């Protein structure tokens, strides 16, 4: 394979083009995946903020029944895996899953450690730090976002409440969204990109191969046949034509050489005194 001109010319080009296109595909897919993940986290954070704003009045009035109904209704929306409201001690105060109520979560667990890593818990986190991805008990991948419920003047001034003004965070809202649709979209993008990459590869490598074959390898084969004829003492039947300019001079020389040999062999009738007409 590496002894032929075609092998020598095409192997490095094939490796380089194929490898580079695959690297571009992998990097592009990684960038798209990050962008889609970031947008999904943004969407989940906005949804958490919307829930907090919607339930704010019910929380202020300490209307537990209304709060539970709202949380249940939102939790029934397609794609929402769970909604939990934790109090300051980490006890589940409200949840779309009744079995989780009044349970305490480990502050070292993923999703809590972001704020509770140090002795004094952090009161604010960046958007991406609020998010975590895990597989739930039903085997579904979930993107969950923690949103803190901050203490406000209306909270600590309300007659029914006991939150001290110094307490910054009253609890947290944890919302989990299914990643099923996101993963399906990413798989669809990936498949389309694979098809696109394969098409580019076939076009590039195939195009280079076809052009090289047409412009270089076929004329070289013709030239080799001509040289073999001359070497064997045969008289070429016709003027060599349709050679590229670089090979045309060699073909002319070979043809003229064969004419001289034929002339020396004593067949003057076969001698064509003119040179081979050049291709335009």
């Amino acid at each position, binding site marked *: 394979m*590496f002894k032929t001109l075609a092998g*020598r010319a095409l*192997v*490095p080009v094939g*490796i*380089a083009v*194929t*490898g*580079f296109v*695959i*690297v*571009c595909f*992998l*990097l592009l897919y*990684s*960038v798209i*995946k*990050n962008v889609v993940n970031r947008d999904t986290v943004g969407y989940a954070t906005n949804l958490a903020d919307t829930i907090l704003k919607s339930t704010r009045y019910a929380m202020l009035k300490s209307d537990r029944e209304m709060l539970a109904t709202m949380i249940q209704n939102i939790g029934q929306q397609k794609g929402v895996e769970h909604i939990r409201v934790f109090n300051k001690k980490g006890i589940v105060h409200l949840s779309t899953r009744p079995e989780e109520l009044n349970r305490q979560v480990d502050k070292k667990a993923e999703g809590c450690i972001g704020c509770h890593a140090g002795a004094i818990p952090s009161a604010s986190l960046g958007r991406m730090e609020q998010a975590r991805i895990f597989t739930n008990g039903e085997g579904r991948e979930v993107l969950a976002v923690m949103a803190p419920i901050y203490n406000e003047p209306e909270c600590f001034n309300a007659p029914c409440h006991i939150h001290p003004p110094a307490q910054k965070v009253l609890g947290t809202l944890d919302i989990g969204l299914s990643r099923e649709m996101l993963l399906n979209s990413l798989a669809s993008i990936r498949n389309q990109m694979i098809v696109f990459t394969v098409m580019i590869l076939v076009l590039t490598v195939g195009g280079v191969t076809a052009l090289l074959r047409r412009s270089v390898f076929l004329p070289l084969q013709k030239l080799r046949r001509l040289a073999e004829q001359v070497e064997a003492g045969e008289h070429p039947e016709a003027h060599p034509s349709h050679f590229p300019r670089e090979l045309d001079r060699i073909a002319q020389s070979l043809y003229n050489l064969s004419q001289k040999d034929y002339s020396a062999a004593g067949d003057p009738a076969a001698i064509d005194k003119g040179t081979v007409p050049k291709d335009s």
Partner: protein
Amino acid sequence: MTQTIDNQPATGLAPQQSQAELLERQLRAEVKHLHHFSNRGLWAFSLYIVVCLMAWRGFPMLPLPDRVVAALGPPPPAHVISIVLLFYTFSAIILSLSRMTAGIEHKSSFCHVGYLTGFFLFYHFAKALDDNFWAVFGAGVTILAVESYRIWSFCRDALSRKTEQLEFIQRTGRVPPEDE
């Protein structure tokens, strides 16, 4: 005409026979060197596979990314590393193809393993290695494959020339004529 070996003027008095023997010894040494050099790409490739295995396992011998970031500061964002990786891959392939075209002997395979290890480490400390491992792996395989082919084809051509010269010396006992 005075024969020269390694740019050293030959003593005009040395007989043709001794010059041929000297050249034969030199050619044999060069053939040995070329045989050794033609495997350079494969050695680099093997080292790269070892680095990839360590990267796949998350560089267990290194300190955790958080500790390194605390000591050295934050790494560049993953998308910046990806852009640099793309330009590096493009430049390395172009450079290798140019050297192949010009027939230059250049021992650059192992430095590419170093650069690629750097990319693995940057992604590792940016906590983006999981997403970008295959991109670096693909870039490395491509660059090292082109480099290995360049070195191997260079050595094969040079070996064929040297072998022809050796055969000429053994057949005629004279110094072979210089190539153009």
